């Protein structure tokens, strides 16, 4: 049904593409933040693009994770703050000083932002490709 799904069942194929692309962006960010080739994710909150996503390695325990991705601060285990924490919402990034960056939609387009100060506190150095996303 693959070909027909592209045409018929509205956007399923391209919806898959947007999730694949979002996953690739999250993975690129995670690799840059952790310096690991296949970082282990801990997901906190509901992030549609990463929901049931088998393209990433994930764990249910923060201490086993290389990076923590959050959509909410509510109920976030304290031990998670020992890892690089990255948000899917801009407001959360602004609210909590432990969060090093965010990947979010605003103004009709996807955005990435990192805090230079928070990266420095964790001794994280990003590659030059992220230079224009650091504030």
């Amino acid at each position, binding site marked *: 049904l693959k070909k027909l799904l592209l045409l018929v069942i509205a956007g399923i194929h391209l919806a898959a593409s*947007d999730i694949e692309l979002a996953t690739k962006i999250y993975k690129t960010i995670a690799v840059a933040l952790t310096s690991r080739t296949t970082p282990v994710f801990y997901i906190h909150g509901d992030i549609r693009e990463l929901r049931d996503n088998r393209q990433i390695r994930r764990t249910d325990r923060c201490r086993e994770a290389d990076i923590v991705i959050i959509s909410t601060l509510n109920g976030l285990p304290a031990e998670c703050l020992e890892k690089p924490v990255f948000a899917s919402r801009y407001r959360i990034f602004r609210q909590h000083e432990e969060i090093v960056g965010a990947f979010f939609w605003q103004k009709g387009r996807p955005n990435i932002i990192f805090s230079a100060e928070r990266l420095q506190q964790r001794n994280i150095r990003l590659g030059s490709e992220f230079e224009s996303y650091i504030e």
Partner: protein
Amino acid sequence: MRLLLLFLLLLAHLNAEEIKNLLKAYELASDFSNKTKQESAGNLIIYTRDDLERMQANTLKDLFKSLRFYHYIENRSGHPDILNQDPVMYSSMPVRIYLNDTELISATFGSGTIWFGDMELDFIDHAEIYQGFPSFDIGIEPAAVVIRLYSKSVEHDRGGRIRLAGTRKKGNAENAYYTESAGDFSYFLYAGRYDDLREQHPLEDQELSRDKKKQSIFASVKTENHRMELFGLSKESDEFLGWATVGAPEKAEGETDYYSASYHGTFLERALALNLSYAWASSRFEHRYAEPWLLFLLTTYKSMEQINDEATLTANLKYHWKSDTNSLITGLQFRRKSLELEKFTLDGIDRTPEAFFDDSLFFDRQDIYSLYLQEEYTPDENQMLTFSLMQQHYAINNDAYEKFSPLQLRAGYIYTADQWYAKTFLAHQEFPPELYMMMQSYLGNPELREMSSDAVTQEFAYDWERTSARLLLAFARNKDFPFLVGGTLQNSGDTVKSNSQSLELTFRMRGTDKIELQAFRVDQSSPKTGNAVLYHGGMVRMLNSIGDFDFFNEVVLRSGYPTDSMTYDYSAGLRYHATDDFSIDVKGENLFNKGLEWEYYYEDDYDMPHQLFIPTVDRRIWVGLEYLF
């Protein structure tokens, strides 16, 4: 689109702008039109978020004016009337406009195009236009064109935007929206005003004006499976020539207030969908002339004033079964249209039905019951068969008047290969007369029959790496076509046929830059004379970006609309993204003032007929500012 995404993805692996390209590819892949469009639903034209923004499409008029087979036209009262056929009668009943899942409707005129055909698009994320009779999950009233507008939402627009725009002496527009979420709950709020001040045209000793002043609001609150929306429009308008054909009016003014509330919910893992909507509208107009005109009953009048209140309640429940090879939708819809003629005077004399004890002047209620079924069968990965059937029952004033039981049928076959597809649709539709067409107060005829329409469309599309081509062939045969004869609507005894062909090419260039070409031809017989009328049209549109600048160029060509001379509307726009949050734009519409002029008819003091040719789109240059926060 898929090839473009692959190209952008490929770029992402190759150059130093990896992240930027990846984000752009993600933005394009996430465009909501990818999730809402239904290629199997009909012959589809999509305006993505990116298209609308780079075209600076501020109103629906900007989309209609280049629509294949059609053009943006206003009737003699200055209301949008895309299918305008007759100097007096409103003709756009088969053009249906939906905002998300709610139809913007007029109980009196059937289609809401009369009020919303030039609505602002500032809160719209993307638009889909289905030509031909689309499937029933797009809209269930019989239709020739369905416009689906999808509002912006928190998923892509968290935060707010303010936009200010103006032209020199010819209008200004201001609007703002804000959207945010908390947990599963999100809201979207929009408010806008638009002073659409048009070029005035001298006639006799008067200036004909089509100015409109509009305020509109839209609010939406939603969770994952439930959404409530409010929409409102308040409009004051100068009504150009007015309804009568006796020259320039001394006064022609109108007002419309429209409010709708709707609920959309999904249940049982989204298999069951419920739509409820209630729309209320009040419209008033007053047209006054120096010369008397013959209206009906062999009596002449100089002025007409009307206040009409109306409401439309719609409840739609549908269930969707899915398996590997089948997709079956069954649905029920009930729609009640209620009218109240608050005031109707001719030369100040009360002509409401109560005053004349003549109910055929005005009906106050129509109930429409619809039961529909739609099956999509996919026997293998390349093919799909679709079949739709709907039985309806239209009752006016509890069946006290003519009742209709139209049957709507649609069948389609789609073949898809790697680089091309072919779509064939056959449709039989029956269009019961709208309420205004049967009421004598609107020159209507209570004895009017329903129009039946049989249509076949064939679409071929082919995608190369950077180019795509689409050919559309359409044939329609309409029986009992309604048209005005001697001041009353009648069914045409002739079969009205139309034969249409369209060829479209899209060339994708660097990044998201593209050039679109369109050429079409319509051969249609006139309902009045049976003679063939030939229309031609075309369009060249270029969208490109260089650095922080977005460029838009468009030429819309028309011939045979309504004269044989070729018209061309050249529009161009430039947007400068000064920062991520602030942009400045300039847009020129119909810059050479050579765009389509529509023909209007009037009689002078000696009853001699004359024609007026008036541009459908004014020459204007807009300057706008947008600030995002």
